[in-house]
Structures are given as C-alpha cells and as structure tokens.
C-alpha cells in the first residue's frame, strides 16, 4: 500500500529542514510516515545513504514508499530506499558519539 497523501511541506519529520528528534520518535512509535504524517502502510520504506543501507541502520523515520521516492528526489536523507515489513527502533546509548535514534529494518523486502 502506498500513500495517497502528498508530502507535507516541509516534510512531517523535517519541520525546520533537518530531522526533528521528537517527530522521529513520534513516527517510530505512532507508526506514522515521516513524510506526510499519516498512518504507515505496508511495506514500510526507509530512506538513507549507501552507508546506512550497508549497516542496515537508518536515521530517517519510516516512510510510505511513495513519500520515500518523493523525498529521495529532494536529497534530504540520501538516495537509497529500502523496503521492509517491520523495523526495530533503537534508542542511543550513553557512549554513542551520534546520539540520534536509529531504525533497523528486520524483514527486508528489497530496494525500491
């Protein structure tokens, strides 16, 4: 299922041009799309850099597939989209240099 709702402007989880931590947590737990702010569908898409794809851990929150494609064009969070059925939401540890939470897709369907 893909989103029929257009991306909000600015995107829901990027209200000031960069990722808002509170919105990221909200997206992760409420299961809403970081692009349009409405309920996620299936599959769930993650947008990230090649590095994020390689380590299977993303900083950008879950997205609708259509929102991920639209956001990919803006270059806001990388150029790779990975589709998954589910994900783990990973909170940062005290010794992590990067204190942003990450998302680990746990049932990858494939690249979009």
């Amino acid at each position, binding site marked *: 299922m893909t989103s029929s709702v257009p991306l909000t402007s600015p995107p829901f989880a990027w209200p000031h041009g960069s990722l808002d931590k509170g919105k990221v947590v909200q997206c992760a737990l409420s299961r809403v799309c970081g692009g349009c702010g409405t309920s996620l569908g299936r599959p769930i898409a993650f947008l990230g850099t090649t590095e994020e794809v390689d380590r299977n851990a993303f900083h950008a929150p879950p997205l609708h597939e259509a929102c991920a494609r639209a956001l990919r064009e803006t270059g806001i969070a990388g150029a790779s989209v990975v589709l998954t059925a589910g994900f783990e939401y990973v*909170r*940062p*540890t005290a010794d992590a240099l990067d204190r942003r939470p990450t998302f680990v897709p746990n049932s990858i369907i494939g690249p979009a």
Partner: protein
Amino acid sequence: MAIADVAEYAHLTKDEVEQLGREFDAIRAEIEESRGAKDAAYINKVITTQRWMAAGARIGMIVSSPFPRARKPVLAASAVTLGLAKILENMEIGHNVMHGQWDWMNDPEIHSSTWEWDTGQPAEQWKHSHNYIHHQFTNVLGVDNDIGYGVLRMAREQKWTPVALGQPVYNALLAALFQWGVALHDLDLEAIRKGQKDPEEMKRQLKQIAKKGRNQILKDYVLYPALSGKEWKSTIKANATANLMRNIWSYLIIFCGHFPDGALHFTEEELEDETRAEWYLRQIFGTANIEGGPLFHVMSGNLSYQIEHHLFPDLPSNRYAEISPRVQALCEKYGIPYSSGPLHRQYGQVLRTVMKLSLPNKMTKDDRPPTGADITIEHRRKAEEERQIRRTELGGWSRSAS
C-alpha cells in the same frame, strides 16, 4: 521525580546503569534473532481460536432463538464466550499487533498498519496515545494520559479539586465503560478542558471516533440482534454482557500494570536526551506485573508481564514469559525493585489510591515515593523554552550536583 532521583537507582554508578542497559540489549537481541515460525504459529493459532470463539458465540445467540428451553443456557454461554473472544482480540491480538510485534512476519493482515480492532477507539488514535504518548512518556505526570485517563486523580502531584471527591464513582464508571473511555483517550480531555487542544485536530479525531463508535454499536446492538429475530432483546443483553466483561477485564489489567504502589511517577525534566539504559530503568520503575498462570497471561495479552512489555514493547508477547525470570534476575543483581503481585493485591493498592486521592493530600498518607515536596503538575507538554537543559552525566554525579 526525575529518574536520577529514584532512591532505588541511587546506588548505581553510570557504568553500572550502562552495563544493565547492555544486559537488557542482549536479551532483546537474543529474542530478535530467535523469533520465527514457532512464534508465527502461536499468533496464528490465537487468531484462529479467537475467531472460532467469536463466530461460535454469535451463531449460538442466533440459533438459540427458536428453542425456549435451551435459550437461556446457550445465551449465557454465548455471552461469556463472546466476552472472552473480545478480550483475546483486544489484549493479546489487537494491542500487540498494533505495537508492531508481528510486523516481521510480513503478513498483510497481521500488521501494525492494517489491524483495526474490536473496540471504540480508532487504531490510528490508539497508536498515537498508547504506543507514542504512553510508552515514550511512561508515568510522566502531565503528559501520560494513562495516569487516570483524564478522569481520575492518580498521583498526589495532580492538583486536588472538589470534583475528585466523586472518584470512587468515576472509577466504577470508567471500568464499566472502559471501551468508551479508551475511545476518547487520544482526544486528551484535560487539554480540551483547558482550551489547549487544536480545534481542527479535535474535529478530525471526533469524526473518526464517531465513525468507529457507530460501527461498533451497529454491529453489537443492531445487526446481530436483528439476525436473532424476535429474540433480539436477548442478543442485545448478551452482547452488552460481553462488552462489559471485556471492559472490566481490560481496565483491571491496565490499572494494575501502572498504579500499584511499586510503580512510580516522573516529571518531564531529563527525558529529552534520555539514554537507552535510563529509558529501560524508567520503564521498570513505572510498571508492575501481575502474577498468574499461563491462561491468565494469555487473557491479559501478556500485559501481566507489564515490566517486560514496557522494556520490549515490540517483541512478540508470547516471549515475555521466558524473558521475565531473566529481567527479574537482573533487577536482583543490580538491586532495583521488580514490582509484582497477584491481581487482588495489585488491584487493592490501585483502589486504595483511587480512594485516598479523592481527598486532599493533607488528609491522607503517601503510599509511594513523592515526586517532590509540594509539587503540582500541570497537564501539558512543556514548551521548548521551559525545559531545563539536560545534563548528559548520569548516576552519582547528577544526583550529587542537584
């Protein structure tokens, strides 16, 4: 109180807190790696059982109509079976599916984005009020709407008004009508009372609730009674009984998971940059388990393992039983409390809190560690400029520096 002020946590150093976090991480990783076909078979079996129970109950109500002798016992059995089916659907299936516990199966039906449950609250609103607000801000006064559901005063830090005198009555009404209390949960009644709710958002949510509520009422009080012909009144009574059973049971499990004496309340300070280990600790301090047998745990949606559920809300619920002794052992090893007790004891403490807090603080004695002397918490998230800048140091340093 802030997590750093919890007395049971005070003896832990920063390194010990982080080590405890790593031990919980290891449990989590182990379950994630081992989940598979056996877990999938479990949830499929529960769903199949629940559907047969619901179907059998509905059919029983319809086919008993022409048989006057069998009608009463069949109706009674059907009402109880439907009540149990609704409990299973709401607690072990709907609640857990919407947490994303089964998303890894990639099943189009058993997925957090597609499940709509058999209760008055729309799934979308539940995922916001429960998965986000309640699980992220667990027992945080002024933010977590589960603290009294906007109706009850459940913490001494909540301001007392004469309205609280009616708490024993509101409590009984909330239990009996819990489905509708939950339906209004994400509206945030307190925010509406104070004029802090966005009117557009309120309108959108009310429309969603009205649509879902109408469908629930049509199903239980119009459609199925109509199928029972002239015995429609009996079917209405049986369905109302089933809904009452589910309401009281889910109220009991939810209240016993957060309001016995062992579960603490927190303030919003220090949560913004909370580390994973601190978050784990807050979940343990803010929750309480209920003891019982395997069937009791299934019927409670495994929320009787409330501590384990709050530590790992998106791990499959059928694994909480095996995690529980390990969590308990870790709590013992690090000298932190693991609040657990039988249903009657946990609910006794909840009821005592409801009664006591109907009165002003000066008339009663506190049963749990207070948030702070004479603190009254407003019901709203703090604005950015009101929040304290959080210290990143943990453990002994932050406590001694305060």
